[in-house]
């Protein structure tokens, strides 16, 4: 299941990359930037205009020409004009997606550390199930636990599976945390 989700994600990424090429360019997303250094009495200036690539030169972009007719060529020779493009849609999409993933992760972290123990205590406070995070899980040869756990048919199967997967993942993260942060065995 995770596999298909990932394949879907990859495809959407690829599609987005291609789409950003094909989609109509915003008029604001192209510009021609001309930097003209100081020349005699005229100060240095920067000119910007949204023109196409073929019009990106000094004569089209430098609009109020600061020098007179005979000096224009000498002035323009020193100017450097560059054509630049960007994709504001890509930037917007990336930043918003990044912030939402970051927000989701933070919420999940808050949920795992603060809310889940409270919820678990409320739901299972009365039952006799041994619910500890250090449970080894399926390798214990306790037939008893099997019977006890199989009695909880009240919850649907999917929730059980998700719970099981989440428990396994949390155990893995705990193991990793122990080796990296506590025992400093890996990645010191």
């Amino acid at each position, binding site marked *: 299941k995770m596999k298909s989700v990932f394949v879907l994600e990859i495809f959407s990424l690829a599609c987005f990359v291609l789409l950003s090429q094909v989609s109509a360019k915003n008029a604001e997303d192209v510009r021609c930037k001309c930097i003209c250094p100081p020349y005699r009495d005229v100060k240095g200036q920067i000119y910007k205009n949204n023109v196409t690539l073929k019009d990106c030169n000094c004569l089209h972009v430098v609009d109020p020409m600061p020098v007179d007719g005979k000096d224009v060529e000498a002035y323009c020779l*020193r100017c450097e004009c560059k054509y630049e493009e960007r994709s504001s849609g890509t930037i917007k999409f990336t930043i918003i997606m990044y912030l939402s993933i970051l927000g989701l992760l933070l919420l999940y972290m808050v949920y795992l550390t603060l809310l889940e123990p409270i919820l678990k205590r409320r739901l299972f406070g009365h039952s006799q199930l041994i619910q500890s995070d250090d449970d080894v899980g399926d390798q214990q040869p306790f037939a008893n636990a099997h019977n006890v756990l199989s009695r909880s048919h009240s919850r649907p199967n999917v929730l059980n599976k998700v719970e099981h997967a989440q428990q396994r993942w949390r155990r893995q993260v705990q193991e990793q945390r122990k080796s990296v942060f506590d025992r400093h065995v890996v990645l010191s």
Partner: protein
Amino acid sequence: FIRFPLYVWFEGMENPGYRSGSFDGLHHPSDDDDDDEMVDIAGATLDFSSTDDVPPLSTGSSAGMNGNGPSKLVDPLEDLVPGVGTYEDFNTIDWVREKSKDRDRHREITNKSRQSTVALLHSLCDAFSGWLLMLLVGLMSGALAGGIDIAAHWLSDLKGGVCLTDFWFNHEHCCWMSNETFQERDRCPEWQSWAELITGKSEGAFAYIMNYMMYIFWALLFSLLAVTLVRAFAPYACGSGIPEIKTILSGFIIRGYLGKWTLIIKTITLVLAVSSGLSLGKEGPLVHVACCCANILCHLFTKYRKNEAKRREVLSAAAAVGVSVAFGAPIGGVLFSLEEVSYYFPLKTLWRSFFAALVAAFTLRSINPFGNSRLVLFYVEFHAPWHLVELAPFVLLGIFGGLWGALFIRANIAWCRRRKSTRLGHYPVIEVLVVTAMTALLAFPNSYTRMSGAELISELFNDCSLLDSSQLCGYKQPANTTDTGVGNSLADRPAGENLYTALWQLALALIFKMLITVITFGMKVPSGLFIPSMAVGAIAGRLLGVGMEQLAYYHHDWVIFKGWCSQGADCITPGLYAMVGAAACLGGVTRMTVSLVVIMFELTGGLEYIVPLMAATMTSKWVADAFGREGIYEAHIRLNGYPFLEPKEEFEHSSLAVDVMRPRRSDPALAVLTQDGMTVGEVETLVESTHYSGFPVVVSQESQRLVGFVFRRDLLISIDNARKRQEGIVSTSQVFFSEHAPSQPPDAPPPLRLRGIMDLSPFTVTDHTPMDITVDIFRKLGLRQCLVTHNGRLLGIITKKDILKHMAQIANRDPDSILFN
């Protein structure tokens, strides 16, 4: 006459070279003379007892069989036990087994493809699956790298202010269409700094303090988020990742290191860590991100999911992709993977890595994170020539780079060791916060440390022209400017006030960066090393370059400048010095040679600067090697005790295999399984009472003649499976590894056949094999263990861990620092 060469050969065998070194006095010298002659066949058959023998493979029956590996002689029922052939966490894979599994699979598909069209299509798909996988890896890594670049730019600009019109634009893009002045670039009404937003003023002491506070606040917030996310979700996402990837590529298994949670957390926290102003880069973590992508995509293809050796080929290519997107240098990325990261790099991987790196670079270019179709922020565009005399300062920069590299490695390893063993390591979150606070506090006042590492390098690489108005280009205009100057190149000019200010600010920045990177690299956030090292080198290079330029201007009549640097000519390019300095420092730290030169040459886009770059890189490598042979990544591998057998080192000591093998004299005897005669209970007790990961199988305890080798994990899984599935298997069932079951009384429980999991062709060396040949065998074949025989009888076993401990002992290091096997 036929015998004569034999005698000559044996004479040669008695050379001191083969007998030197101590060996345990397990046999008397008289035995040796008898054995070495080896002509008396009658004496040699005394030991054989033919009743225990399984007859060797007859040539007739093996003509139809393809493989010589264990999988082909197996009872088909036993092949289906799931879990056999997999490895435990923190163990080394068996390269030979994986490669032969793949060869068998390929042969089977090729044979079947002649039978039907469907099978032919299947074989074509199988051949193309590798290329499809490379394409997907390139696409995914390129897309992620583009996203990381955009997000990191935006987030690090957020420390300074915010864009009022569209909040998702960073500073440069916010002022995209508005008017800028020549003197103050990037000032526009749409972008407001925090002081302007909060207090309404943009100048003055109060605004400065407000900006300072907000900078520190944002830096602390970002690093706090980064370290708590790493700690809560994926502790494997911290650090650079390249030492661990090196070890994984040499055959080690670290489960979860290249998983999906590690990928997500590494991507998110890398952006946070880079934006928080810490002195770290993102190139190393990008390699880790690319390898995670490759590992995740491998699960889509059976060919790569089930075979660890094939998967490592894909991971090698992914490492190339990582560097390629970090620097926009596909060729440099492939060479980096070849030189630094990979262990086995077949030629097929070379072509596929290049393809993947190109796809990734193309994807990154189409996302266009820097707005002008550049792949890297610090692309260099000048092509000014250099003169032979300048080789002297370039070599000087190389020496500086080598010295700094050696010093940095020692200091960083000492600091990391302290973090590992003392109480400093118990407070990772507080450590990150303290280091961030210190960095932000000291970095803000100096404009060169306030900007991010990549921006600093970009500014230092820049050659000053008339169009620049930054502080670093603050030269004095000479009195007689020619108004009809062609183009924008400038003659060497004397330094002005601004340039002097910039110079001492740069000197302070150099000292700051040198000290702070030592404690930043290795913290529990994703951290890379390339950008800070290049920044240190670039600052040093630029300082030297400006110094040379001023020297040439004021003393243009000196002998060294006379020929080529007349007054009014543009002879010295400080930007080039910065580039050479960056290459020298990076080479000194990582000890990269070819890949570094190619990366820098791809950054500049020209062949003019290859000679200075090579001169500086070679000098820096030689100087740094004089202080210690290891680069930073090998040093970290050694610090963590990974079982990495360095492929570039020579084993020079003259010991023999018998010196290194286990069991030593004082150890208990070698734990072996016999071909038959052991019960399931006995096998289980033996396996559980020891920690060995494999057991040799011998014909009998008296003869000690070798049959094969069986792994602990396979043994446990098979016995467990047999107890559950096969009927009648109890603790008193006989276990047999031979072809046919031994004869048993009729009321005995059914025997358990375990021949299928046994490796029938374990590698052996004799006890007199010199250690350098043995180490070579281990390296070239990727062995995990090797059995030692004497006169055909099993004597002991050498594992990779034993070799590493032996090498540590020879180099006077602590042999107990090798932790894994």
